[in-house]
């Protein structure tokens, strides 16, 4: 059996599993639609309620010419990404509970392809959600300076954040084996991480230190750099690349490192759960 054949089999396994999870989402689109609805509400409500206050804060922080809805967009994209990514562990726990996990393990499919396929389907759903949110934001006055290329970059950064929280959610799922726990974890992670970052308003001095250790800070500022077309990174100062890259490069680097660490833990736990073991 040649290397190409193995690769083909793996690719087929990946596609098969991506199809399964996409089909499930199509049959049962509630979670998918709720995530879009929540993002829409956030976009509309936050800009309506905090618009004036936000405007003042932006002026003080030197973003005087930026509309609040434009400033808000990266925050809402992060929120939608995290919300969707956290449901990854839910699917896993449901599979563990219904026996579908074991049933999949006992097939000749490659375990790596099984999980990669599921992740691919989940990332694809996040992309669709983000595109809807970006479209809505632009429709109500947000402005993306870097255009279509920028939107692609924004999606890529969101997917990095998505992968990170999918890994977190799977780790929680494998340890707790309980959907309720993942639900609780979603709330526990999302709110502090969003508010202890420059997501909604520019960072105050009080939380700057905390925000430095918050992955969402890097996600939100990298996206914001692409939305505004300028270097916006506040927590660390980088000036080797010039312009947008001064924010995007270090932020993506940090997100990649975090993905490597949490991803390795998730993969280890998944491998342990799916390999034949001495119980």
């Amino acid at each position, binding site marked *: *059996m040649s290397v190409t*054949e*193995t690769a*083909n*089999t793996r690719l*087929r*396994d990946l596609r*098969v599993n991506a*199809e*399964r999870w996409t*089909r*499930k989402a199509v*049959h*049962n689109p509630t979670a998918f639609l709720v995530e879009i609805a929540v993002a829409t509400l956030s976009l509309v409500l936050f800009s309506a309620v905090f618009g004036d206050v936000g405007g003042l804060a932006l002026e003080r922080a030197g973003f005087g010419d930026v509309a609040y809805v434009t400033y808000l967009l990266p925050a809402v994209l992060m929120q939608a990404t995290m919300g969707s990514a956290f449901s990854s562990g839910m699917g896993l726990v449901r599979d563990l509970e*219904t*026996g*579908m996990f*074991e*049933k*999949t*393990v*006992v*097939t*000749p*499919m490659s375990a790596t392809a099984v999980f990669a396929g599921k992740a691919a389907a989940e990332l694809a759903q996040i992309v669709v959600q983000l595109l809807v949110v970006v479209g809505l934001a632009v429709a109500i006055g947000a402005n993306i300076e870097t255009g279509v290329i920028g939107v692609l970059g924004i999606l890529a950064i969101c997917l990095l954040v998505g992968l990170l929280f999918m890994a977190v959610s799977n780790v929680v799922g494998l340890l707790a084996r309980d959907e309720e726990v993942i639900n609780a974890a979603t709330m526990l992670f999302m709110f502090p991480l969003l508010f202890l970052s420059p997501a909604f308003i520019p960072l105050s001095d009080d939380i700057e230190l905390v925000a430095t250790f918050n992955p969402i800070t890097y996600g939100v500022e990298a996206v914001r750099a692409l939305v505004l077309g300028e270097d916006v990174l506040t927590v660390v100062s980088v000036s080797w690349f010039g312009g947008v890259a001064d924010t995007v490069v270090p932020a993506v680097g940090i997100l990649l490192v975090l993905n490597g660490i949490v991803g390795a833990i998730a993969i280890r736990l998944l491998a342990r759960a799916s390999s*034949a*073991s*001495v*119980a």
Partner: protein
Amino acid sequence: MAHESVATDETDIDETDIDGTDPERTDADGTDTDGTTEGQVTDSERAIDIDALSLTYADGTRAVQNVTLSVPQGEFFGFLGPNGAGKTTTIKVLATLLEPTSGAVEVNGFDVLRERTAVRASIGYMAQETSIDTELTARENLMFACDAYGVPRGERATRIADLLNLVDLADVADTPAGNFSGGMKKRLDAATALVHDPDLVFLDEPTTGLDPQARNRLWEYFRRINAGGTTVFLTTQYLEEADHLCDRLAVIRDGRIVADGAPDELKRRVGGDILELEVDGTDRAESACESVEVAADIVRDTAAVEPSATVETTDDAIRITARDAGDLGPDVLLALRDADVPVTGFDVTEPTLDDVFLAIAGDSADGLDGTTEAVDAAATEEASGEDAAATEQTSGATETGATEEDDNVVQGTGVEA
């Protein structure tokens, strides 16, 4: 049963089926499948070959101890035992979901450790708990299984249609499986285990929790699968189920095989048919119980009752277990009438597998620790000395000889099944 010939006929077809279904799977892990020179022919005729399998869980529970077992191709094999006996552990080792602590296990000629992917491609596995995706329709569940086992695209439509017909789900093929009843879900689960036309199917307590009608339909379905040449390895707590379906049985308790044979053969080990006489002697003796004992003595003295027969008593009845117990009836009834013992009921029954199980279990009944209701009843009812004779015979005939060592076995450890 005609499975001998079926098995030989199927051998060649099965071999090509493995390869034909999905060539890249069988040798996917690149292991050498021709490693053995000796016994190769025998191996290919055996669906399952377990040699001295033991599995000890991390918590020290010895779930399976020194089990040796082989199942020829085409057989409908039953693995019978109470909760926690080690049935599921064994089936999970065979399905590559658990690694043996020691011993060698081959499935369809492939080693479960070294040729895991080849084993997985050649078996169907139906777990104890219904495992279907409730968010997908019946057809989509089958389609996913086809994808997972690499069923060639051209064959899928017919294969899925055939299976849907076989399990009577054709009219609800496009309904989400979440809307199905328990029995329908089980049937769909069974169908998904068969999309790749495997040589061997594992069914782990497939009818647990089903109503009798649903159970009967599943039985019918399993018989059809087996008639088509597929080897079936079924575990069950239901003796009736094993009796109905299986060509051959192994009885497992506390991780050890305690008996092995065809259902009829096992029934014979109980010592024959059972003649049950209900007697009412309350007006003659102080208690019904006493009068039963008196009647039993009369029965024992009857010339027609051979010494090899066993005579037991319950509160209001006498149970005589003997070859051709029915023929004893007239003599016994006459003897009781002469002694003025009124007989209120008379029944001759063939031994059921329950009786077989009780005979085996009775050997160490005092060690039983509430494994199942059936066994519990046995322990209390059959702990009497009378039963020991029948049990001796049974254990003497077991092939594994495990029963003799049973006293050393830790009893009722609550093994995770």
